């Protein structure tokens, strides 16, 4: 297991957003976290990426305890994430947005910048090369010099992917990558996610578009009311009574109809 959580719990005031969740994310696989609205999926992401401190429980990455680490240090370990909204710098070019993604692998400081030291030159070349590489990977090499505000929503999602990839991660967390994307574009994004796996990355995503998930995920974890209610392969999830009930609701008549 690349990432494991044990007894992970997050309380906001009286509300338990994530309740005693234990999940394992396997290396080189696509893990999807699903659940009805308000099930605690985004909070779980925020805990793992260090954006919120957890109330209880532990998170380990390759056996190392990262529960108390802050988000920028977690990123340095090789854990990247994207947000539901892309948050990109709209009036800068795609390239400029992505170059900074490699900053965490560089050591240059203000002194290096002002005196253009060899280290800075080397690291700038590396950052630029990295940006070009990930932009090519996500299929945006031709859009590199356009402003982000001028490209499509789907392309923006790809830029967000590229930015995450520029940090040289081992695992990428994607928060609703297909939200706000038209159905035909969703397929392209799914292909891109598969491509990330082919390159040896591990992916964990939250998504509501079930058809996409069912065709994409190796492993699905279902949350409801902050608790893990099921996990397994897509086939197992689709026939799991508890999942069906969480999604379709438990109606008496439904039981009769069955």
């Amino acid at each position, binding site marked *: 297991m690349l990432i494991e959580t044990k007894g992970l719990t997050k309380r906001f005031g009286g509300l338990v957003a994530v309740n005693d969740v234990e999940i394992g994310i396997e290396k080189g696989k696509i893990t999807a976290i699903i659940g*009805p*609205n308000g099930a605690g999926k985004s909070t779980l992401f925020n805990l793992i990426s260090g954006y919120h401190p957890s109330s209880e429980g532990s998170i380990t990455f390759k056996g190392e305890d990262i529960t108390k680490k802050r988000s920028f240090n977690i990123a340095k370990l090789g854990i990247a994430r994207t947000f539901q909204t892309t948050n990109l710098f709209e009036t800068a070019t795609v390239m400029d947005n992505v170059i900074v993604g490699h900053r965490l692998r560089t050591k240059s400081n203000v002194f290096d910048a002002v005196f253009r030291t060899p280290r800075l030159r080397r690291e700038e070349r590396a950052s630029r090369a990295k940006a070009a590489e990930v932009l090519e990977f996500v299929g945006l090499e031709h859009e590199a010099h356009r402003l982000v505000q001028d490209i499509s929503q789907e392309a923006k999602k790809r830029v967000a992917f590229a930015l995450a990839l520029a940090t040289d991660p081992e695992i990428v967390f994607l928060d609703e990558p297909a*939200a706000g994307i038209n*159905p035909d574009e969703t397929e392209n994004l799914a292909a891109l996610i598969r491509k990330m796996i082919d390159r040896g990355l591990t992916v964990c995503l939250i998504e509501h*578009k079930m058809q996409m998930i069912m065709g994409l995920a190796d492993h699905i974890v279902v949350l409801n009311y902050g608790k893990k209610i099921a996990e397994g392969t897509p086939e197992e999830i*689709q026939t799991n009574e508890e999942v*069906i009930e969480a*999604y379709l609701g*438990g109606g008496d008549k439904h039981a009769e*109809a069955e």
Partner: protein
Amino acid sequence: MLKLSDVSVRYGMYEALSDISLTVEKGELVVLLGANGAGKSTIFRTISGLNKPVKGTVEFNGESIGGRSASKLVKKGIGHCPEGRKLFPAMSVYENLRMGTYAVRGDKKETARMLEHVYDLFPILREKAKENAGSLSGGQQQMLAIGRALMSRPKVVLFDEPSIGLAPLITEQVFDVIQEINKEGTTVLLAEQNANAALRIADRGYVIENGRIVVSGTQDELMQNDEVRKAYIGA
């Protein structure tokens, strides 16, 4: 009484709704089913004037209302109990209900009558009338949101996922009240993820997927239909 014809809504380049056509007759209880992000809330927001359609018409009692402002539409009789409740957390339960009459304020007697009615529907609100909305439990907040939407004496009420985050028992209670409201003569349009519970009380329904209506039918038809399941869990 409510009719959407070929309505499309865009957020930038993204087509959130494409060619939605649906009707709700007077006195009906119609349910919109679909997973998160399918477009249910966008339909509601378009009906109540928070979003503007780029294409198509929205008619209410034969009058075209597409693109009108929300404040005007409340006056015309469209009540909207939104997803996430959108209460005024630092106001008391009573004050929240009173704000519900904002669009039709003036008639003190009617207001008092509606207040009694809401308190009768949800006795717990009467008990907690002086407490801040923010201090209520999730279920009570949902009841307050429903009550607030009723205070403007709407002809049609839109309930957007009232069961979110509620325990099954409370959900049942909330649905019972929605059914009661409908039986009293108010037309109801209900968006739900909780498909079975919603279908139990509905006359008819539409299944939304990716901003389109994929199936529509009566309660029984939808209960037997596999598309419902597919829209939710992709099966």
